[in-house]
């Protein structure tokens, strides 16, 4: 199940850890740009992967307010609830 924020956050962490360049000690509070060293394009491309897993689309303007993995999970959960 990936319907609540905690589950979505866990799923995002798992996907991120599939990338060997991502630090091993990330948590839901890790900051995507600062702690993961993702640039804007990397963030957009990563979000695309998550979108497919959850079958949602995240408009780009929503990404502007996202700092941490938990923020992203919250945003995805809200969009998923909206689209349901």
């Amino acid at each position: 199940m990936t319907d609540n924020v905690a589950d979505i956050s866990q799923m995002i962490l798992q996907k991120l850890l599939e990338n060997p360049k991502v630090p091993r000690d990330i948590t839901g509070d890790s900051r995507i740009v600062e702690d993961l060293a993702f640039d804007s394009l990397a963030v957009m491309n990563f979000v695309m992967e998550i979108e497919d897993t959850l079958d949602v689309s995240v408009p780009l303007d929503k990404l502007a307010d996202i700092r941490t993995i938990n923020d992203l999970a919250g945003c995805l959960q809200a969009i998923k609830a909206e689209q349901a």
Partner: protein
Amino acid sequence: MSAGLFDKYATLRGNYESLMAASPRNPFGVVIERPLSATVGIIEGRETLLFGTNNYLGLSQSNAARDAAIHAAQTMGVGTTGSRIANGTFGLHQKLEHALAKVFQRKHAMIFSTGYQANLGTISALVNKDDTLFLDADSHASIYDGARLSGAQIIRFRHNDPADLEKRIARTSNSTGARLIIAEGIYSMTGNIAPLKEFVEVKKRHNVPLLVDEAHSFGVLGAHGRGVAEMQNCEADIDFIVGTFSKSLGTVGGYCVTNHDEIDLIRLCSRPYMFTASLPPEIIAATLAALEEIETKPELREKLQKNAARLHEGFKSVGLNTSNFISPVIAVTLEDIPQALAFWNALLAAGVYVNLSLPPATPDNRPLLRCSVMAAHSFDEIDRAVETFGTIAKELQVA
């Protein structure tokens, strides 16, 4: 204490300084002291082969365009000093719009002062905050910026992937706002060609209009040079075509062509159209002359295709990693920035100028040596460029 204006540049400054420390010259500050022809310019005091322009048909050096510009400047002066909405339209603006509409077989054309503004001005006028845009992930910055200016919700779909587009459109089936799909004909960084015919099938199934930017494909592809839509025989189903004068036409400016009669309303709400000076007469006159050359000299396109195929084949023969599309933009993909910097510097030192494109401005986070070929290149010039690439690739153990 508040932050300084340039504090935010700390990371950029660090990256820039590292880059400059690793490169004997600034890759973003190359000075072409003067062009000797379309294909050769003086850089660092020596003759250099130009493989880093967008001058696909060589028309920036067209005698007809030059003479038309001189005549226009002599008879009308060199500027319009204002926007068309506030300060008036010159007859030449309308003449060029009529000529473009005729070339594209559309009812209307609207011209802008740059290609960047053509996307900004068209996209921001077509959609607003209640609407949704579907952009190819590899879209040009002018498309992203136009989308942001519009305030519409922006949804990216995977590059050149009609199935991915369809999936994302389907997710918005309950949306009450208007929707618009945007793709390009040829992608400027990689030379990839869009599957427009397949995008048209998607747009028809979901009844969503389609805007295509043919900036790099106009004058280049299609039986009459109208671009990828003409080549793939799907022009009639494309609602808006945007383009530029600064590639195959060799001047500066941009346009949108369409059959929608609302174009005169767009003129009244497109800020990048309304609040900027219109194109000066000499540029319009030169563009009209270049447009006529595109129409009357199909041999330029044929030569360009042959040259593109020769450069593409040459790169493959020396083991370089390029896209499989044969288009006038051919990008050599490298693995990391130090390798790309060394390669690019060695090319320029050996007399071949290409564009260095670094992440995140590149699609898959790898650096590119972006090359563009012209109809004006001779086979000998292309072969010399390939040989130089091959020698450097061996030295750097790239190929």
